[in-house]
């Protein structure tokens, strides 16, 4: 297992070394927010960022992607026959990704890589991607822990974890992709027990002896209350009375789904310019009525409450039941932050989780 140490100023140049072999994506400041952007000469990485507004999901699952191409020109012998859009999948490194955004790819993968069918574009792009994560205890007040996000040092979704130690960075490779990336970055051999010391300090972070700082969040983000959801029968939860109340303020703006690192819904549309056509995949949102509208006019989720309910049920119940790998949420808090009417997944999870209990309390 390769480890490397970088003085604070030496880290960006080491990352720049990766550009020889990878397309490198880094956090950059964009106005009041941060975003991941390809590191070319026009951008300056900002590894002190806390959270990007839009998650880096699109680097593997683009917001808009041409899937197939065709010609509608009848003089073309291949007219109206769809074929794969030619494209390549060069190695790409996402440097500075936070552990929750990296875990989101693990949440997403069960949808695109299944025992029966596999999404070729997701697979190839995911395979070409190396995730070099930035670990620092700087969770904000909208964040929380779930089965799929154990905190700012969660290394499960990463190929390299880079601990921010203040004066410098300590990087540890996790698997083959990470070894290759760290080898390309160069850097110094760390002191003999540097890694052990960091890991011990993180393990001790729950105890008061460690002062708050880059290795200890103060306070630590709370757990999303989901412990009883697995045992909740689905139909009563679906029919619970609180859904109308939860959905009442919703404006159907869809920002919760647009900013979610674990939302995967998409639409497919054809576009033709002159006689050259593309079949394109775009992110979609379950918050929009059009998403489920039948050609006949019937809509199984025509009402706002039905759509809000489906979103939370999918994230916190259907996904949990179907895959048995936790809820479909990594606790990034973007939906909490961006919702214009303050619908808060933590409150909704608490209501769902406590659903049976509430009834019991009323009975007493």
């Amino acid at each position, binding site marked *: 297992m390769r480890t490397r140490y970088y003085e604070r100023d030496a880290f960006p140049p080491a990352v720049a070394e990766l550009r020889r072999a990878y397309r490198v994506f880094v956090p950059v400041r964009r106005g009041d927010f941060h975003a991941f952007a390809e590191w070319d000469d026009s951008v300056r990485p900002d590894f002190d960022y806390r959270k990007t507004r839009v998650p880096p999901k699109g680097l593997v699952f683009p917001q808009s992607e041409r899937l197939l191409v065709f010609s509608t020109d009848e003089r073309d012998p291949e007219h109206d*026959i769809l074929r794969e859009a030619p494209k390549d999948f060069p190695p790409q490194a996402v440097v500075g990704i936070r552990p929750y955004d990296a875990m989101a790819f693990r949440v997403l993968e069960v949808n695109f890589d299944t025992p029966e069918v596999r999404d070729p574009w997701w697979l190839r792009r995911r395979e070409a991607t190396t995730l070099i994560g930035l670990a620092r205890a700087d969770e904000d007040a909208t964040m929380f822990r779930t089965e799929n996000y154990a905190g700012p040092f969660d290394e499960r979704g990463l190929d390299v974890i880079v601990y921010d130690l203040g004066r410098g960075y300590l990087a540890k490779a996790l698997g083959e992709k990470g070894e290759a990336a760290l080898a390309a970055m160069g850097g110094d051999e760390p002191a003999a027990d540097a890694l052990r010391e960091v890991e011990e300090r993180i393990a001790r972070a729950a105890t008061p002896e460690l002062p708050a700082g880059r290795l200890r969040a103060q306070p630590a983000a709370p757990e999303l209350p989901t412990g009883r959801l697995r045992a909740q029968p689905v139909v009563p939860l*679906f029919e619970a009375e609180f859904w109308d109340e939860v959905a009442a303020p919703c404006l159907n703006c869809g920002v919760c789904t647009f900013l979610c690192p674990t939302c995967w819904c998409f639409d497919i549309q054809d576009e033709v310019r002159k006689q050259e056509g593309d079949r394109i995949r775009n992110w979609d949102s379950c918050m929009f009525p059009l998403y489920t509208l039948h050609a006949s006019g019937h809509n199984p989720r025509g009402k706002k409450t039905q759509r809000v309910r489906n979103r939370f049920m999918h994230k916190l119940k259907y996904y949990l039941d179907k895959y048995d790998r936790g809820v479909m949420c990594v606790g990034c808090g973007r939906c909490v932050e961006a919702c214009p009417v303050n619908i808060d997944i933590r409150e909704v999870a608490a209501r769902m989780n406590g659903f049976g209990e509430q009834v019991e309390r009323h009975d007493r």
Partner: protein
Amino acid sequence: MIARDRNPYLPYPVRIEEIITETGDHSLKTFKLVFLDPADEARFAFLPGQFAEISVAGKGEIPIGIASSPTEKGYLLFTVQKMGVVTSHLHSMRPGDRLGLRGPLGNWYPWERMEGRNVVIIGGGCAFSTLRSSIVYMTDPSRRPKFKRLTAVYGARCLSLLLYSDRLDEWKGEKSGIDMHVTVDAMQESEPRTPRWQCHVGFVPAVVKEKIKDPTDAIVILCGPPAMLKFTLPVLKEAGFADGQIYLSLENRMKCGIGMCGRCNVGGKLVCKDGPVFSLAELGELPRET
């Protein structure tokens, strides 16, 4: 099912061989499709109840049940109602035009359970397509011995809206191997065609009540508009059919057809991948949102 190593979004190229206008109001046409590459036919091995995404380049895709039977070789049939963007364009197309076809998709009627049993088929309106596939499949001389009594009830609003008139004549014949009951909601005064066989007048549930009385060792497969299902299911239950004996085919808006795009879910189940065929027992465990 699509092979796992194949790009599941890439349609097989097909050619429209023939277009049959099924109904007097021209709202339903059956498209006979032939693969441009004959080898694709073997890759498209399917069972009745499955569907495919028909692709019109430049317009998009639509999920449509397969109306032909695996025993009908060399072509596929799809009956399409003119309704939205893609279907309207499809209705304006001509023999020789090219389409794409992705599939077969979804699950199928419970063929393993149906073998050796009595089978009841109930259909209404344009939803009869996968049931046509099923009846042709079961009454094929090579497969008919595998099933016991076959009974079908098929209804439409009027005679001119009945699908597959050529096959109806055959199924109403004495040697068809199936007891076929056809009904129309009302008999119009100026029907363009008068069937050679007896046709009931009345709604599907009424005919089911009269003709389907024995749940013993039977499986029911049904597909039809919501109103037909709403009034037919209680009739079946009253006759003693259990939820586990009744299978329905659902539909929902779909895009990918392979369980990825997310929109066709009913609770935690996806109509495109876990369905479209569900037993009434399975549906009872799902949230009601269709």
